[in-house]
């Protein structure tokens, strides 16, 4: 608030740094929200009942049947890397450790898989 008031009054020093400042604040808020969520989940695991699995985020018209069909067409490694990565929100190095790959290789496989998946989703023959 103080920063905004100074900005309105034209008293802000180095106004060119405002964007970085706002981004930094946003990042802090997001990190705090993530930490809060992790803390709540930890407490629930320890003291509360395990909640039902959450619904996936609302999707904008993604053809789920087509996506499943496209996923089934991927080579095994690509499908495994994508599922472990996106389902469990794991970076490439974590996925690599679990599947006996190098981190670089896991990134390459993930990238290749995503490109194939996007291409399959954009064509009309995605259905099995």
């Amino acid at each position, binding site marked *: 608030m103080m920063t905004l008031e100074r900005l309105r009054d034209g008293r802000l020093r180095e106004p060119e740094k405002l*964007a*970085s400042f706002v*981004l930094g604040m*946003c*990042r802090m808020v997001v990190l705090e929200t993530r930490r809060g969520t992790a803390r709540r989940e930890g407490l629930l*695991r320890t003291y509360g009942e*395990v*909640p*039902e*699995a959450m619904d*996936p*985020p609302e*999707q*904008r018209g*993604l053809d*789920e*049947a087509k*996506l*499943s069909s496209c*996923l*089934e067409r991927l*080579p*095994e*490694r690509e*499908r*495994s*890397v*994508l*599922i*472990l*990565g*996106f*389902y*469990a*929100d*794991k*970076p*490439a*190095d974590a996925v690599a450790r*679990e*599947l*006996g*790959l190098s981190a670089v290789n896991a*990134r390459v496989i*993930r*990238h290749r898989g*995503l*490109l194939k*998946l*996007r291409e399959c*989703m954009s064509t009309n023959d995605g259905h099995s």
Partner: protein
Amino acid sequence: MSTPICIAPIPFAALVEYWFGELAPNEEERMEEHLLACAKCSERLRDLAELGAGIGSAFRSGAVWAVISPAFVQQLKQEGLRLREYRVAPGGSVNCTISATDDAVVSRLQASLEGATRVDLVLLDEQGQGRLADIPFEPAAGEVLFCPSAASLRKLPAHTAMFRLLAVDEAGERPIGDYTFIHTPS
């Protein structure tokens, strides 16, 4: 409404690395500054997020099958998913099913994988033969885990399926183990 344009679009690979938090802090900061100012790249990031959510959803709903890892199975359990696991030794067989209350079935094929550079999984059943080439595996794990599509399993009649793990290299291929699954609908 006009389509937003971007004169310096973020490479797709970098967007993916940003999504998974793999960028260095300064790269991440630059990326966020660009994303905040660029509707086109923000839209591409949203498309990636949507695709990622769809991948997770497809697996969660049992629509696709996948070779997975022991750590991933542990995570599914911690999330509260009801898993039915079958651990089978080489040459062994197991009676198996999937019930209405199961979220997923995990097949754990015990195998000596040390020294193997490539492993293929072959399925033999009354319908014929299928081969999954070059499946991912962690040699030290001593097992290959796969999670069949629960949706497909629920439709299957009583039948017997045999899986064979093969180690493949330049010299040819050698069987690691055969595993028989005797499926009965619940």
